């Protein structure tokens, strides 16, 4: 197998593994400016995963974490325990080598239970928007 073939075969699980180092550093440096070094790298690696493998099951989990962390730079607000929890979750997923839809769903719910807001995009709901009139 030549080098080019190796690069082409990079998988979701391999890229997800590379996120763990940055997440551990974020856990270590929570609340400190130096954490930005690892947040920046983490963000770029997550995007690389999404660009290369948009339909991979690992991408689905990583994008849920991505949105929770990088919308309005909320990565600054999460605490060490939450980063520890996400490291444990991703470690468990990469150890499985292949994950199915059920594992993806379970992982996203775990992120939510850890306090990561995976639907962070706020929609200002009109006070006058009455559900009973939605489709009139």
């Amino acid at each position, binding site marked *: 197998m030549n080098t080019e073939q190796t690069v082409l075969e990079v998988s979701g699980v391999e890229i997800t593994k590379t996120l763990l180092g940055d997440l551990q550093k974020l856990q270590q440096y929570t609340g400190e400016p130096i954490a930005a070094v690892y947040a920046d790298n983490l963000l770029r690696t997550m*995007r690389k995963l*999404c*660009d290369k493998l*948009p*339909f991979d099951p690992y*991408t*689905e989990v990583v*994008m*849920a974490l*991505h*949105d929770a962390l*990088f*919308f*309005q730079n909320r990565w600054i607000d999460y605490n060490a325990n939450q980063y520890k929890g996400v490291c444990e979750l991703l470690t468990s997923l990469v150890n499985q080598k292949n994950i199915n839809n059920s594992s993806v*769903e379970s992982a*996203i*719910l775990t992120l*939510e239970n850890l306090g990561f*807001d*995976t*639907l*962070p*995009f*706020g*929609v*200002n*709901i*009109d*006070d*006058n*928007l*009455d*559900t*009973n*009139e*939605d*489709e*009139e």
Partner: protein
Amino acid sequence: MNDNSIPQHFLDTSVLRSLLLGTQVYKQYFKSQFTDQPLYISNYVQMEMKRSYLINLISFYFVLRLETINNIGDAITLWSNRFKASELKAILQLIPQLFSTHQLNFSSSQDKEKALAILGIYIKRFELLLRKKFNNTNNDATACARAIVPLDLDLQNAAAGLKQFADEFGDVDTCRNKCQIDQFLLVQYRSEIEQLVQIASQLPKNANTRGFIKIVNNLKEILAQGAVACDCKRCVKIGDAVIALNAPRNMQLEHTDNSFDYLCPAINQPHYKHPSENQIVTNI
């Protein structure tokens, strides 16, 4: 109620929507109110979220996917020019936030495909959280068939799964044939509805009562015309009444809508009206 001091919480669509889609401040308000207590919803409440938000997200997905649309900006322009109802504006708030967080170029035709993939992932995640983040009472006496239309999404071929969902969710004739809304309104809760009609007839018309009176006017038509007046379009207009009637009486119905202030006392349904998002934001 297991313990009178700690009510269990049953969420109306207005509160569920805020927990899933509200601003961070509003979500924090509800978090402080519920402090990790179990929250319950019903299939019918899920259906209202699918009808008012999920189906619009799917519509935007297909607007963006159109071959005549070159980029994200074109899709936003088309949507904002042609679709103006308030629930459609929510899509216009979401899309720029979602795609900006992924640093997509709104003018680039290359980023259109990326945007479709990201939107597909978001839709799948939203549906998952709608289905699994909250406890289900597993008691939908209307047997709403739209509520249980599945979204089976293979992200490699998202369009097929989304279209299948839109087809089935939009097939209101088939769904109506499967549901029991007529039994629910005309038999199971007929006396309660007659009582609501009586209460509404004695209320003055003002900003607080307007929503309730509109609902009751529709219920009156159903009482007068029978099952033929019960269809999915009518359900849009009486949703709060259906939710209040079907709410577990041992739980507190959490809502933000004025109509429940009149619906709930009449049927002995414990309830709590939360401040609107604007009230919370203004009071910070």
